């Protein structure tokens, strides 16, 4: 069966970046405004799912050649590693630290180890969603 996806595909090419930018915004805003690693990761996966709907698995795999299981592993390592990092400073596991810095262009910026932890969450969420969707999708 041949379907005509021109509109969907054209829109996707544009909207994809908006969604991904938005998800990155959500991710970084997380500590102060609605958002965070979990939502950000889900939003990014949503973008990839849109890509999957518009194109097919093979094309998407060419565009984004990630092994999503490894993404899960890296995410978990980052999250647990951040937690374990506290041990080296003689603090209980998963103690976070934060400070404020004045960076050029950005002005007053808060730096959190929580962001590192959230990066782990972000990656795990993307990895898990995409692993599940890809494996189920491929098995057809």
């Amino acid at each position, binding site marked *: 069966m041949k379907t005509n996806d021109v509109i969907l595909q054209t829109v996707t090419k544009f909207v994809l970046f908006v969604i991904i930018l938005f998800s990155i915004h*959500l991710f970084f*805003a*997380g*500590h*102060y*405004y*609605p*958002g*965070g*690693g*979990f*939502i950000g990761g*889900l*939003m990014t*996966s*949503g973008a990839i*799912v849109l890509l*999957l*709907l518009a194109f097919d698995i093979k094309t998407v795999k060419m565009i984004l050649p990630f092994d*999503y*299981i490894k993404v*899960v*592993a890296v*995410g*978990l390592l980052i*999250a*647990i590693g951040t*937690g374990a990092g506290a*041990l*080296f400073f*003689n*603090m*209980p*596991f*998963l103690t*976070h630290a*934060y400070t404020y810095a004045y960076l050029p262009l950005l002005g007053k910026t*808060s730096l*959190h180890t*929580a962001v590192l*932890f*959230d990066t*782990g*969450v972000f990656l*795990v*969420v993307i*990895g*898990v*969603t995409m*692993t*599940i*969707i890809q*494996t*189920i*999708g491929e*098995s*057809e």
Partner: protein
Amino acid sequence: MSLLHLAVLSPLLLAILIPFLHKYFKNIHTGWFLLPLPAVLFAYFLQFISTTSHGGTVMETVAWISSLGINFTLKVDGLGLLFALLITGIGALVVLYSIYYLNPDKEKLNTFYVYLLLFMGAMLGVVLSDNLIVLYTFWELTSFSSFLLIGYWNHRERSRYGAQKSMLITVFGGLSMLGGILMLYIITGTFSISETIQMSNEVVNHPLFTATLILFLLGAFTKSAQFPFHIWLPDAMEAPTPVSAYLHSATMVKAGIYLVARMTPVFAHSGTWVWLVAGVGVLTLFWGSFSAVKQTDLKAILAFSTVSQLGMIMSLLGAGAAALHYGTIEDGYYIVAVTAAVFHLINHATFKGSLFMVTGIIDHETGTRDIRKLGGLMNFMPITFTLAIIGTFSMAGIPPFNGFLSKEMFFTGMLRVAEMDFFNMDTWGILFPIIAWSASVFTFLYSMMYVFKTFTGKYQPEKLEKKPHEAPIGMLISPVILASLVIIFGIFPNVLSHNIISPAMGSILPSLLENGEGFDVHISHWHGPTAELFMTIGVIAFGLLLYKFMPKWAGIYSKLPSRMSFNRFYDRGLELLELTSKNITKSYMTGFIRTYLVYIFSFFILALASTLIFKNAFQLDLSDVAPIRFFEVVLVLIMAVSAITILFAKSRLTSIILLGAVGYTVALFFVLFRAPDLALTQLVIETVSVALFLLAFYHLPQIRRNEERIRFRATNALISIAVGAIVTMIALSAHSNKTFGSISEYYVENTYKKAGGENMVNVILVDFRGFDTMFEIAVLGIAALGIFAMIKLRLTRGRELDENK
């Protein structure tokens, strides 16, 4: 994080690097990267001798879960140091040996060395941690790494069998020990071993005492392969020989002995402890040496010999514990048993380590370990032969080797057990020296079999796979070092007594010492014509007689009923277990998700409804309810209509879209109630799950109208209505029944102050309840792996996996 912590964790850290080193330095044997670590650690731990030999200890703490009393506390005292030195010292030698033993072209070296490092780190953790929970964690890690190493050649069925057996038995013991640890915590309120020892009086008088003691001993006995749990050790010999030398003779199997020694100050005031430890030990000693004689595989002989020697050390610890009965060092008539235990622990590591390496050499150079095929190797392998002589003669207790000294002290200890006048020892105590003596006869016998059947007698080249020749020099270094230690300790035993043995005894029997005092240990070769000397002479004489007339009496081994053996019991038990659990699982696992949902929801209804009824929990208080707004009514209506329409939908596609509509409406609810984080999450989740649903759509069977029966639907309707009603009731009660203030105030106050964030939801997720999030993503990851594995590794019908390839 102190240097000591780093030392204990360093093997685990190196283990992370090994796969990369293996990948990028293909030409270098991976073992070379490993070798410096145990050697450096050995040197590092040697420094502590100056502290411990004066009775001092070093303690370092890293806070872990302080609120539960679980801290990563490491303590170096005499006993811990002795084991740490054994682990790193023998570890270095074994790694060196393995470099020549394992062929880098044929074996997967990266996994092997990762497992070995894993074990080394875990074992150091076991012997140095002062916190029982940390000790337990490392304890199980040694079981796992042992499992992986036994199953290293996982294409062999026997390897997998042995790995599983050791795992099941040692983890069973480990879990019992965990029970013991928790009971001990109930009694003392602390997980710290040092603090527990100080409270030993309260422990002894507590009603849970006997149960705790038995649970601890189960852990120790399974790990140290004591009768009747010894059956796993011979099967563990499927591991590569360096592993057998390291884990299953020198270190891991001694973890049980370590535990008994460590817990002696806590438990040993009771007769139960003395009887159990000494009794099981001496029984194991006899059974092990008796069974060793009938073996034909060199490694099997050594395996049973290890079982028996472990029993011997165990029985000495049990007998020595009686010394605590008196409470002062002057009356310490029984202390000699503890000295013997510690001394023999060292000796056993040296001679058994070298013997295992000799076995590895024979296997490597001839292609077999069967003593029926071997013989006359003396001329081909003179150095190996010498090493074997030193090792076996020491094991048999022949002077001037170190085994002779500890064997004599062992006899002394056992003779003194017979003289005990407490714990009812005066009636049955006489059995101890008798069993010990006869076990020693068999020990002598199998030692002689080991060396003479292999190296003397008729050379049978036609039965060997390879033409035997002397081993390469690299394989000989480690056993030569160990064999020289056998001789050095045999001739100058007192190099150990002050620095190593005495501080270790100080840790086992601390209550006998005043502050700053130490045990005065002096080991001498000649005590005059004592009972022990005649016992040794008797052992040699009887041993030689039995060896000479072996064919005449060996028939008794075939008369032993094989149906009654513990191995058979284990195998049958496992079969039955598998069969029963399979049948039980089959009886309720139908393979239909709708059945499982019925189970889940029925349980849900039962549990919650009964709580609501019996606890009289349902309350309705609508006094402070906000007014219901127009939008809310609309949303509820949309939700209800779409949910009910699902039931009447003809195609699955419609139901999926309707379900999505329900989800999106919930998201709108979150918006109305000002929960933007939840709303966002719900929206995206709904989108992704609808997409997922559509994907899975292809795999689902078509809905067939005629399949659905009325009765079936009535049950479902009942269940679904009940679930809805109960959830509503709980929600109403939760609102009406506020018995304590909400925790949200705490977060409102502290989100900015303590975590420097302004979005409370996210701060809770990553900071306040970061642990939950961490485990959640771990669960997510596991779920993804599970789905991946189920779909990718699906076996097509009729095809079976052949694991033996």
